[in-house]
């Protein structure tokens, strides 16, 4: 993302102009835009003209509109962001108050105005404009009969392909069917890799599985690559790394990212950092449950006593359409920061973020043990 201009006054109201450059930036934009903001961008609108004689002609016009946001829609797979709202600046084609849906496009500037830019939003702008934070990863997690081909960007884990086939089991004297099934399964994975993994961007492809599936697949893939002349694969052979995972389900990506053998390769990408912190939280929960809290209420209490050392928050909470709710979390984050605590904002698109989301979305490791009463009634 490129920051074009920034105009935020003392009261934290103002606007920011940004140019999204890659798919992930849409994700950031999605996290920045909340209901009630104003958004200005170029768009295409169908305009009806009525001539003096009464004949109606419809034509499409590219125009710049400013809307007040009423609904936001994000497609995680395609990384498309659609924002619906009412026009607040009349122009020659569109009247005041007319509804319009803006499709944010790559490489087109948009301007976002807020009454109140909070610390979370400002952090995010900073983060998304930081070009050093790019480490694209691809991962294939598999087990016999099931594979997920995923792309891992700093803020997103996208499942690009889920491959599920039946592989006949070995039976007495009938192993060919098993082998055939397996080869077909591998072929499908290879196709998925070729289709979805952009080797120019991706630094490393993790191949993870329990047992020997990964080794078998690795061998098979390069044998096929030689046979069928998949140059891309051969050229990027060094990017493939084999890692152990306990299953082929998506959540075992967490294990993959934890693996010490690849930790060095990934340096400190956001994904691995998140996994590590979450792990730490669970460690505390195991060893000293009085120092690991989850759920907003007990954590707020703890924060009041300056007890929070590390706060884990899912970014999902800041997308809340309820302004008060959002305010509450932002305050919590600010409070923890003031007291010198560390705040980790998890991307809800990562596996670890998903898990945190299940844990009410907010968790904390405390500096000192606090007795926890659990009369809080958290639903779900």
């Amino acid at each position, binding site marked *: 993302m490129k920051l074009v201009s920034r105009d935020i006054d003392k009261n934290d109201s103002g606007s920011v102009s940004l140019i999204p450059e890659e798919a992930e930036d849409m994700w950031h934009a999605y996290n920045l835009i909340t209901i009630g903001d104003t958004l200005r961008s170029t768009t295409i609108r169908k305009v009806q003209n009525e001539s003096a004689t009464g004949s109606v002609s419809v034509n499409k016009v590219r125009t710049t509109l400013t809307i007040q946001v009423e609904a936001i829609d994000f497609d995680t797979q395609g990384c498309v962001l659609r924002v619906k709202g009412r026009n607040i600046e009349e122009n020659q084609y569109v009247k005041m108050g007319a509804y319009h849906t803006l499709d944010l496009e790559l490489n087109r500037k948009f301007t976002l105005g807020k009454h109140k830019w909070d610390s979370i939003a400002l952090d995010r702008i900073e983060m998304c404009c930081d070009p050093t934070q790019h480490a694209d990863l691809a991962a294939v997690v598999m087990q016999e009969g099931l594979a997920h081909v995923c792309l891992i960007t700093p803020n997103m884990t996208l499942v690009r392909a889920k491959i599920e086939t039946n592989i006949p089991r070995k039976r007495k004297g009938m192993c060919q069917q098993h082998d055939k099934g397996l080869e077909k399964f591998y072929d499908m994975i290879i196709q998925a890799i070729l289709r979805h993994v952009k080797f120019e961007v991706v630094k490393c492809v993790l191949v993870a599985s329990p047992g020997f599936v990964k080794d078998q697949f690795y061998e098979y893939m390069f044998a096929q690559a030689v046979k069928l002349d998949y140059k891309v694969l051969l050229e990027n052979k060094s990017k493939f790394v084999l890692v152990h995972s306990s299953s082929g389900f998506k959540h075992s990506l967490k294990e993959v990212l934890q693996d010490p053998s690849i930790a060095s390769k990934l340096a400190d990408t956001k994904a691995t950092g998140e996994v590590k912190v979450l792990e730490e939280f669970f460690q505390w*929960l195991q060893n000293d449950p009085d120092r690991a809290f989850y759920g907003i209420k007990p954590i707020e209490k703890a924060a009041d006593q300056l007890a929070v050392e590390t706060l884990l928050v899912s970014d999902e909470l800041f997308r809340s359409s309820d302004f008060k709710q959002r305010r509450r979390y932002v305050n919590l984050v600010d409070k923890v920061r003031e007291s010198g605590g560390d705040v980790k904002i998890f991307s809800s698109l990562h596996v670890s973020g998903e898990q945190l989301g299940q*844990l009410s979305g907010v968790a904390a490791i405390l500096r000192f043990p606090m007795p926890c009463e659990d009369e809080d009634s958290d639903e779900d």
Partner: protein
Amino acid sequence: MSRHRNVRSMNFEDEYYDDDDYSHSYDDSHCVSPGTVAQFTFNRDQNINLTSYMGEEEGIPEEEEEDISDNLQGSKDYSGPILSDLDEGKLNSCLEEARNILGESVPESVMREVILRHQFNLEASLDELLKMQDAPKPQRQPRQNRRSGSQAAASQLTGPSVILKTPPKSRSAGNDRDKSGNDSGIGNDIGNVIDSAEALSKVTVTEKNHVVINYEWTQNDLSADLKNSKAPSSEESSLNQPDLPSSDSKYLNVTSTRVTSDNPESVETYKSVMDDSPMDFILDNAQKVDSSSTSKRDRFIPPLPKSSSRSKYEKVDVKEEYAKRQGGKDKINLVVIGHVDAGKSTLMGHLLYQLGNVNKRLMHKYEQESKKLGKGSFAFAWVLDETEEERARGVTMDIAQTQFETPGKIVTLLDAPGHRDFIPNMITGTAQADVGILVVNATKGEFETGFESGGQTREHALLARSLGVSQLIIAVNKMDTVEWSKFRYDEIVKKMSTFMKQAGYKEENISCIPCSGLTGDNLAHSSKEPLFSSWYKGNTLVEQIDKFIPVSRPVDKPFRLYIGDIFKGMGGGISVTGKIASGNVKQGDRVLVMPAMELAIVKGITINEEAVSCAFAGDHVTVVITGVDITNLNIGSILCSTDVPMKAATRIRARVVLFNLELPMTKGYTVVFHYQSLTEPAIVKRLVSQLNKSSGEVIKKRPKCLTKNTSAVVEIEFERPICLELFKDNKDLGRFMLRNSGQTIAAGLIEEVLKTKAGDEVESAAS
């Protein structure tokens, strides 16, 4: 455009099948009649040097080795007499007919010979061929007797002495008689029965040929009689004319005259061919013969023989059938578990070999090949580890399933992988088992690694316990590596028995057997090793297996079969395998495939490669179903009865016992849910309450987290609906396991289904 599409789809098909082997290509060649197919297969086998083919069939004590090779030589070089074109044609048509009825159970050369001898008279040759197969049976009477029981053969002969003498063939021959001249499908059925009966009783080629000679002297006169006897019945059935008294009585005459012949067994065979006639139809009692002749006539009154036999098939009282089958040996499902490299596969491979289930030649081949790979000691494991990958790595990766027999039991053996990555497979196998053998490695240091917290000895034992395996043999393997030391054995036994008690096994259900899988000591026979036999006087492994207490099976509950494997078998339909968890299934039944909610029809059932008409809870079966799309079938889908279908749940409440967790369980905990053959990701959505481990009282409501070794009630949600049975309805099917990051973290019992497929909440008012 559409033409273009055609071309494309054709290409796809080509690609799909082009490198398929023979067994697959039948799939697409529907147009070929099964008879032709049978002939075709056989010819292929015939054309190859027969050694490998024969080798697999025999499974024979070594002394017969020479004979076999002689015979093989004979069949290889066999090139019948030179025939005129006309005769050749006749011969071929006879051959085909015969094959329709007999399947592949008789070598072609023998068939040719017989047909030629009878001058292309099909009936006569068939009779002779069929009889030939009967013949060797008497040599193995005790076995066959049980066999016929277990096969639930249609014989309703109840007198024990006669049962003894009624080989399974009686049934097939009976069928043949009833349906003579009917379609080849049934012929194949018979062929199968014959085939299997033969394989089981280990009739060898030698024996067969031997028999041919034996029979030679009675053959000529008998076959003529047989021809007569055959003719009327077939005529009757085809003409639907109930009484042909003259021919009938003639037939009976034949029988009674044959009573005097030197071959009582075959007479009895024929008697049972006449089938439903009561058992007191004693051989030389003329009056009884008369009465049975009337009964026989009665039996012929129902017109269409084919349909009548079909309907008879279905009307068979299931319970009766089951009771009859249980009359023989007990069936038991045995899983072999233990730490990786404890020698599970080798132990069982060697056991199978000693019991004669693996023939020597094959074993020799394995030995050679494994030596070539530098893994000579893995030869026995190759009996069970059949995929290339498993052999190359020397690690079992998936469950291998075979069957063997002990004096009192038919044992379905499931060899589980020990490697921790393959525990999902092991769970699938163990869920299907009733009893188990836990193999531990006696070698210094190896036992300890397996037994420590990271080892699979513990985990497997716990898993087996939680999956309902209550009887366990601890096989202390590799005793040869510790010089058969009694001290070492006692040490291991002591450690294991304390642990097993902790794990919740009852002492009387645990037994320890020292043995060695590699040397084969104390498996089927007691050891000849002096160091060992000096102190060990107890049971051998096989004796101990024989002592397992049979388990009761929920035969009368609604039918359920968890699909463990799906493949395209020969012919049409989809084959699925699995253990029947409860109830029974018959050929022609309509079953429901859940959670896809599709109706399917059971086309065929096989147990251990034998076609059967019905199967019961506890059987490992391959069921051929039609009417469903293969995409609607998943591993873990279920076949269930249409009367009492299963519910598909997306959210359940369960009571769990947590094992050694590294991380505490909180809500939102992602787990892998293992249930029977099913493996699904799931999320612990809610911790309802923490329970006292022993008393089950609620200690705390809504706990924040659950740490290791606690018991709790939790709610679990799945990504897609899965079929479950509540613990209170079925104890075996109500259990599941939870795993995370390669560790088994909990075992659970399903208490309630909270949400079903449609997303509608099941009202929990009941609880």
